[in-house]
């Protein structure tokens, strides 16, 4: 009896392989209708390639100082100019992509890893547990992001890892709330009730029936959160609370650049433009993704 019962429960949800082809077709349609999103996705891809291929793209060592090349304007050999220690700004911007991507992606993965299960449990069981979790979340949300990050960095000390953790913890309540709201909406749907009726346990209901149906909304939230996390890392590093020199983070580069605005303005252009371009393309791509996965909204 039991195996057939689970098979019935499995048939109640849409099978994913059958959805792949129409989904790809829809992706192509969205890409054609929203060229800006397609370009955004392509630029995100470029940044990923830049982060992964940093050693091959930047032929110069980003930490190599050269006293003969202090604050030189852009030339063919150094297309983005050099900084106050004669380091190649181009190489530093390229390597900075790695740090930014790391902080942006891993912090949001952390937020998802903590927030989604918590929200799932809160929304699924409701009652007192839900109340406790939500009050904690409310309190957590009351700390403005940067103030929270500053508090955490004060306790843990400044570094890329700690900044990533701080950013991730800052983004966690958003995922708890979102997941809980989505679960509340899905838990009373017929297919969940049906699965429960044929004997699916709590864990199975959550992991096989509810989670797959809320994944697209979570994915959309992640694409919105990553650019925010990327900017957050830059801000923390800019304030000296994140990546420590001499590591090439866009935020630390801007911090140094601020001292030489009148003599070497190029030092401030490129790292900032890189953050802007990465955040903008993530947001554009995210808009397209929302269109693709969540066609009912908008």
């Amino acid at each position, binding site marked *: 009896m039991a195996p057939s019962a689970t098979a019935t429960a499995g048939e109640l949800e849409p099978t994913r392989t059958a959805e792949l082809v129409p989904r790809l077709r829809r992706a192509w349609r969205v890409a054609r209708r929203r060229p800006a999103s397609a370009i955004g996705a392509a630029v995100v891809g470029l940044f990923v390639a830049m982060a992964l291929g940093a050693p091959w793209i930047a032929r110069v060592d980003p930490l190599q100082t050269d006293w003969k090349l202090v604050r030189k304007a852009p030339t063919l050999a150094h297309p983005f100019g050099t900084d106050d220690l004669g380091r190649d700004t181009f190489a530093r911007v390229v390597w900075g992509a790695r740090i930014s991507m790391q902080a942006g992606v891993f912090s949001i993965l952390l937020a998802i890893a903590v927030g989604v299960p918590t929200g799932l449990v809160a929304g699924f069981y409701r009652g007192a547990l839900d109340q406790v979790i939500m009050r904690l979340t409310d309190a957590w949300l009351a700390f403005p992001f940067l103030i929270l990050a500053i508090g955490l960095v004060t306790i843990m000390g400044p570094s890329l890892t700690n900044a990533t953790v701080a950013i991730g913890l800052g983004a966690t309540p958003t995922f708890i709330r979102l997941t809980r709201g989505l679960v509340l909406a899905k838990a009373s749907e017929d297919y969940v009730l049906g699965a429960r009726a044929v004997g699916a346990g709590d864990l199975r209901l959550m992991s096989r029936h509810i989670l797959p149906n809320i994944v697209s909304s979570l994915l959309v939230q992640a694409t919105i959160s990553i650019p925010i996390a990327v900017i957050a890392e830059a801000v923390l590093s800019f304030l000296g609370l994140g990546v420590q020199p001499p590591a090439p983070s866009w935020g630390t580069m801007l911090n140094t650049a601020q001292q030489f605005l009148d003599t070497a303005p190029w030092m401030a252009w490129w790292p900032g433009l890189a953050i802007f371009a990465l955040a903008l393309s993530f947001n554009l791509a995210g*808009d397209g993704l929302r269109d693709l996965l969540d066609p009912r909204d908008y």
Partner: protein
Amino acid sequence: MFDFLVQRAAISVVTLFVISMIVFTGVRMIPGDPARVMAGIDADAAGIEEVREKYGLNDPIPFQYVRWAGLALRGDLGHSIRTRESVVKTVATKLPITIELAFLSLLVAVSIAIPAGVLAAVRRNTIWDVLTSGASLGGVSIPNFWLGIMLILFFSVRLGWLPASGFVPLWVSPLENLQRMIMPAFVLGTALAAVLMRQTRNSMIEVLSADYIRTAYSKGLAGRIVVFRHAIRNSLIPVVTILGLQMGALMSGAVVTEQIFVVPGFGRLIVEAVFTRDYPLVQGVVLLTASSYVLINLLVDVSYSLLDPRIRVGGSASGA
């Protein structure tokens, strides 16, 4: 209505309680003896003993919490390690500067976002809509500290029109104060404007499709009157809520903006406190910021329910 206010206030009290526990625990997570942490690296034995006595650091943790919270409620958040001034007094001298900055940037944000959002909604799917949506996306994506640096580069370094940094109190010279505040306020305001613009547009679009708007049009009212007298007012209610929720972002933004433009406000205070390991000051500032965020949002909810009598507890419970 009354029930709603009571429940909303009760939730806020619980939230404040949890916040105080988080902050209390946070300080105890700093490695080392809490008495030494609170008294400072170069405090002598007497100083450490004084702190130990004041906060009852030899008592069990729950007692310590009650004592600490009691002092905090009476406005005693300890003393800055560096200046020996009381934390509350230090914050009180810095806060007006940040409030001025926040007010000016709110002014910038509202005066950009609301007209633009309304325009985008009324002229939906035209070039105006595309332009404002694009500007909004750009505003969300631009790191505001970089925008600040670029403004300094252009207006101060290149053109020499505005001083790059510093602060002159409003009562000393309003003109010089404004000259120095205009760039920070703009930087902080654009980030907020981007969010508000999108919210105004969406909420305006929703209102414009409501029945009473159709009725207003079918009565023969001019489009201008329908938009200004009927639609805008109703569409701004959700915008007020977003404004409350954005207060946190505004405080975070103030930290960075004050750092770039060397404005001696609240935000600069906390960064300095972190670097000088002034733990009582960090603790006090974090506690005050989170508490004021809760109180501001309570006020927003209260005003919201006054503006819109349809709001009932049910609405807030499902959103919680």
